[in-house]
């Protein structure tokens, strides 16, 4: 027995000493040539055998019988895979990830971020060009996870929804600065013009703690065109059949090796009165928007800094066809108006460590003022918000790049002042906070992100926000992700249910509103497939958002809009399955189905408790998208079909003042299912793009989107019950002119 053991040991030792090793050096491309890169991960693809490069960038590891493909990876750099033959000494030059942007833009239109621990979809500028019109609210047309909800029939505000909840529960950032929040949630998506957008990241479920505590169902980050970007000039003109016109001009100029300056500008207007459904109301509000960003960027090897100003001015006017500005307040003609001014200054400074790319120190500071003045018939609503935000983030590693962390301090100051009729709502929030997020990365195969933040809120006390993300590659083609986390936000009822103010409903605050608190749990699976030689990706995910407290906006009872705190329970379950297939080069197909189960306990005004499906949320949705492009995108064709299932809507008709309305015996009403067809054709010339397209090509319209339209000052008037398109078929054409 012993002899066998000894012999076995000898054989083992023999193989060990005989085993060939692969050695080499990892470099990065510096400005003056290649520089050794310490700390990179080196491992055999598909195995757990790995090592990391030493301080001189040297590595040495045994050959593997399981794989001949050696992966070299490092945070901030693009992975490199080597096929190892007989050679044993290797030189690897890693490219910085900054060049990745270009790769993404050239790639498929919707990409899934494979390395991210959160389930993240990226909408590239290529996909954005598919939906030519016009701003952030319309940028999700070809995306299955985010859908547009129809707000009301008068104001033109567009909202999005994700995981069965409205856009207010999504943390929407513009270049990592919280942007669409507070009073700006009403029209905020209309304030980000489409041509300014470079790409959009959509993260589902709990997000990173670094950007704050407000994200409940997900986070959207919008990257804008950069001052040092490839496009030196981008001019866009757009017009549609309703007479909406739009001009965009982006300029980028490099002043020196280090300084660059950029301008993003936008002007759009609709002056044409449209009433296709002949209800006496404008189908689309008249409006004019001016919007611009000017920013300066400094980039050197050790420092990146940006400073900028944003300014926006928009006027809107809707209501009855006969209404003219100046008649507001007194007239027997119903009018809606909204004037918004928003100004912002921001700065982003990052200290970089060229020889330690995993390390960074960044400071974001921004300040903004928002001033909105509205009227709905004889009712006035004005809101002002001043915001100051600062976020200091430090990131580094713990001993090696398997363990990294981000930590920092934040401060948020929000000053709200709203008046509605004769009620004044004012509050000042002052929230200093701190956060820590740890990431464990095992060869990109297993990633764990555990983060927590602690925020001391002056009005509602200390808030603790833990969040956890896991990513595990089951094999080279299958990735499993899980996430869980808490979200917290202060609701702004009037801004969030703005469209419902265009009604004769009496607004009642039943009690002092508490902050909204939710927990989100999610699970997703991504798998790459080969279907008869075609490349395909299959994604299935399930998310649940459970509220500890939610702002309930109860519109069940005709004539009333009640706001109160959640009594029993509110939750949103979302299931989605998506298949992306590339049957041929430059030909992409997407088919997605999603199911929502969203419920809320209602009935407080009558001391009842009944769990009801949330209004205006359709349970089923199917999305189909097909895109085909000729080489160099000479011609591009795109077609999207959406099918929306039935949804619960408020009971039509009137309530007798002393009738027998109760939540228990309330009749359920359903809006019909409908589908929606969009298509676009683009022709590309070396410097020009010309596009022609249509939305709602099947010309579906909700019948009678405004209840009681004939008597807007009467008891039954309500324009806030819109579940489908108000205007019919939209045809548009536009040009883009670019100098690279």
């Amino acid at each position, binding site marked *: 027995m012993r002899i066998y053991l000894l012999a076995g040991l000898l054989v083992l030792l023999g193989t060990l000493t005989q085993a060939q090793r692969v050695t080499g050096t990892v470099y990065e491309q510096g400005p003056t040539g290649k520089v050794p890169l310490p700390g990179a991960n080196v491992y055999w693809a598909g195995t757990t055998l790995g090592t990391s490069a030493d301080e001189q960038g040297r590595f040495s590891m045994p050959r593997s019988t399981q794989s001949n493909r050696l992966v070299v990876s490092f945070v901030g750099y693009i992975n490199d895979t080597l096929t190892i033959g007989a050679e044993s000494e290797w030189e690897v030059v890693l490219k910085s990830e900054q060049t990745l942007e270009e790769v993404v833009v050239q790639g498929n239109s919707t990409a899934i971020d494979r390395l991210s621990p959160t389930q993240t979809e990226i909408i590239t500028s290529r996909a954005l060009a598919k939906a030519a019109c016009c701003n952030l609210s319309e940028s999700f047309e070809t995306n299955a996870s985010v859908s547009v909800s129809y707000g009301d029939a008068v104001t033109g505000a567009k909202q999005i929804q994700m995981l069965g909840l409205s856009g207010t529960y999504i943390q929407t950032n513009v270049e990592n600065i919280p942007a669409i929040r507070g009073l700006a949630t009403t029209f905020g998506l209309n304030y980000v013009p489409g041509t300014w957008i470079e790409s959009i990241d959509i993260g589902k479920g709990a997000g990173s703690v670094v950007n704050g505590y407000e994200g409940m169902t997900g986070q959207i980050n919008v990257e804008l065109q950069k001052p040092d970007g490839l496009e030196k000039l981008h001019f866009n003109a757009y017009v549609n059949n309703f007479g909406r016109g739009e001009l965009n001009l982006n300029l980028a100029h490099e002043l020196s090796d280090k300084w660059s300056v950029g301008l993003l500008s936008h002007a759009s207007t609709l002056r044409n009165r449209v009433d296709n459904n002949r209800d006496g109301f404008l189908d689309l509000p008249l409006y004019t928007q001016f919007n611009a960003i000017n920013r300066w960027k400094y980039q050197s090897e050790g420092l990146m800094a940006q400073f900028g100003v944003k300014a926006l001015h928009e006027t809107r006017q809707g209501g009855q066809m006969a209404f003219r500005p100046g008649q507001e307040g007194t007239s027997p003609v119903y009018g809606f108006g909204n004037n918004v001014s928003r100004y912002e200054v921001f700065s982003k400074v990052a200290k970089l460590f060229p020889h330690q790319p995993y390390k960074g120190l960044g400071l974001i500071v921004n300040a903004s003022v928002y001033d909105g003045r509205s009227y709905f018939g004889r009712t006035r609503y004005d809101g002002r918000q001043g915001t100051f935000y600062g976020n200091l983030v430090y990131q580094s590693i713990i001993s090696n790049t398997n363990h990294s962390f981000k930590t920092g301090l934040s401060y948020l100051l929000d000053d709200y002042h709203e008046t509605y009729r004769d009620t004044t709502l004012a509050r000042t929030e002052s929230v200093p906070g701190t956060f820590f997020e740890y990431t464990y990365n095992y060869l990109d195969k297993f990633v764990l992100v555990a983060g927590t933040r602690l925020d001391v809120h002056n009005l509602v006390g200390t808030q603790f926000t833990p969040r956890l993300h896991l990513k595990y590659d089951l094999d080279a083609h299958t990735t499993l992700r899980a996430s869980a986390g808490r979200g917290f936000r202060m609701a702004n009822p009037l801004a969030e249910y703005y469209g419902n103010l265009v009604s004769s409903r009496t607004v009642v605050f039943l009690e002092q509103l508490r902050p909204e608190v939710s927990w989100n749990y999610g699970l997703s699976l991504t798998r790459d497939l080969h279907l008869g030689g075609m490349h395909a990706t299959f994604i299935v995910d399930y998310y649940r958002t459970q509220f500890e407290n939610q702002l309930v906006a109860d519109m069940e009872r005709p004539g009333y809009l009640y706001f109160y705190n959640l009594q029993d329970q509110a939750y949103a379950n979302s299931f989605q399955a998506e298949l992306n297939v590339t049957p041929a080069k430059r030909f992409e197909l997407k088919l997605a189905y999603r199911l929502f189960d969203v419920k809320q306990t209602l009935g407080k005004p009558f001391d009842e408790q009944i769990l009801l499906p949330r209004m205006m949320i359709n349970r089923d949705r199917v999305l189909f998208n*097909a895109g*085909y492009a000729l080489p*160099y995108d*000479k011609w591009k*064709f795109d*077609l999207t079909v959406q099918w929306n299932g039935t949804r619960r809507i408020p009971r039509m008709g009137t309530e007798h003042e002393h009738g027998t309305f109760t939540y228990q015996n309330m009749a359920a009403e359903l809006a019909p299912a409908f589908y929606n*067809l969009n298509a676009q054709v683009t022709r590309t010339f*070396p410097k020009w793009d010309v596009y022609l397209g249509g939305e709602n*090509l099947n010309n579906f319209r909700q019948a009678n989107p405004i209840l009681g339209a004939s008597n807007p000052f009467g008891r039954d008037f309500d324009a806030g019950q819109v579940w489908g398109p108000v205007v019919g078929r939209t045809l548009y054409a536009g040009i883009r002119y670019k100098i690279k």
Partner: protein
Amino acid sequence: MKTILFSVLFAFAMTLGAAHATDDKEKVVKVKTSAICGMCKSRLERNLGLSKGVKEANLDLKTKVMTVKYNPSKTDEAAIKATIVKTGYDANDLVADQKAHDKLPKCCQKTAAPHVD
């Protein structure tokens, strides 16, 4: 409503069919250029690819030779060379258009040292 759906689908199918239609006439030309880096490559390939009659343009950065597949009834060698020259690069014995060359990013101009990207 249905007619529109069908016409859009039909247009779609047409383009797909057209794209797969086989080409019986196709000529190939090789042109030596003054391209330097990956940016030059994508710029030249794009401008050629979007010009009339060109089916495929592929630049080998090592040899700087551009291989162009084209339809001889729609374009010819002279026009292809002219496109390269107008983009700011030499095409065989033809010298780059000076104005276009000067507008190129510094890394793509002839004075730039050889580099990878």
